[in-house]
């Protein structure tokens, strides 16, 4: 399972650095790494969410301009932990619930990210959140659900349980 998750995240990295740019609309791109990471946290639970979130976030931090080292790692660790809590309690085999979990995960990631990135400047945070984060969340949510529906499609029907291995 671990190697499968690593492979999935590597694939997300490749897709993010190649295809995502082509899909950008007015500079807004879907975040495939976050989709893959939220999915892994939901499937494997909090512990995996924290470990993968920290490692993936740190890797992203090293590739970003070195001014906020640790920001992605912090936000993704917390998001992974919180999303992972839904492994046991949530009824995951429903697309509406999956969409809600993905949406909540994206918001949970973007809010602390935006706050720290703007130095807790409320006005700047709100402006960036409305202009950049919200469109990114919406686009990522739609992209994530399209991918989920494509993977869950079989014989003319959509089966959400296909997304979750036993």
């Amino acid at each position, binding site marked *: 399972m671990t190697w499968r998750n690593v492979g999935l995240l590597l694939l997300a990295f490749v897709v993010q650095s*190649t295809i995502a740019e082509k899909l950008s609309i007015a500079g807004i791109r879907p975040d495939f790494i976050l989709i893959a990471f939220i999915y892994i946290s939901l499937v494997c639970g*909090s512990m995996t969410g*924290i470990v993968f979130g*920290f490692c993936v976030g740190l890797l992203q931090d090293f590739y970003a301009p*070195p001014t906020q080292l*640790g920001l992605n790692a*912090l936000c993704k*660790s917390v998001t992974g932990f919180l999303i992972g809590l839904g492994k046991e309690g949530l009824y995951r085999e429903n697309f509406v619930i999956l969409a809600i979990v993905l949406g909540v995960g994206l918001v949970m990631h973007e809010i602390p990210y935006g706050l720290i990135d703007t130095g807790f400047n409320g006005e700047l945070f709100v402006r960036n959140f409305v202009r950049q984060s919200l469109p990114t969340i919406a686009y990522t949510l739609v992209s994530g659900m399209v991918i989920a529906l494509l993977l869950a499609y079989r014989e003319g029907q959509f089966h959400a349980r296909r997304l979750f291995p036993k």
Partner: protein
Amino acid sequence: MSRFLTSFFHTKQVVALVLAVGISAGLLSLSQQEQIAINRTVMMTVLTPLQQLFSFLPVSVDLLHENESLRETVLQLKMENTALQESHFENDRLRRLLGFKKRPGFSYIPAEVIAHDPGRGQRSVVIDAGTRAGVRRYMAVVTTDGLLGRVIEAGPVSSIVQLVIDPACKISGLVQRSRSQGSVSCIPELGLLVHLPVRSEIRIGDHIVTSGLGGTFPPGLLIGQVDRLELEDLGLFKRAFVRPQVDMSRLEEVYIISVKPEGDFSGYHLSDRTSRAETGKQPDRSPYARQ
């Protein structure tokens, strides 16, 4: 309630979360210089070797399209090259007849920009080629667009490149069209400027290239294009505002100019005095001097 919390938040998870948050917060609280140092160390010791290991993998889905367009460019350049070679041979013959020295040939050491240095006000970058690759201090660095700067420190596997927009970098340049010579330098609040005698022939849109005087930069490297002209205070000199040809904010691949074994750029030195005027420092051995 406590039993509920215990079952909900396992101890291992809480420890892992606290550790992850603690390390992240610790990294975030470091000063910018420290963050850059860590970033650079990890990039150079861990990520760069890993990237090199996987560099055989295609990185772009547009590879086929890019390949096609590059083939077209290669064809065009080959045709252009044939014509230029003809001119080159003719030029060589004429130079021999007139008793000039033979011009040196250059080779290029490719490198990638691995770090910018905000501590120096974006006036230098770090590249992943050093003395092991043949890089030496004061070698000129270019991109496919034009002159980028020169190497000011060469380590075994990486080097620091001083950009042309660094006020400490003085270049002897000339107007490509009229061959008027001037000194190119950057003033922080004004940008890149070329100072010329008042009677020099220069127009907006003219290209400024290196003159080759001083031995630091080979002649003919494109520095930028003239944007605006004005007279200096006493009216004895005019200055042209130059827009650098290279976009300094998007630096990826660069090339360090090295002399081919049969070449000898030292023939271009006028004197040590010129070299000192150009670099603003005590004369150092030119990287292009004969070994």
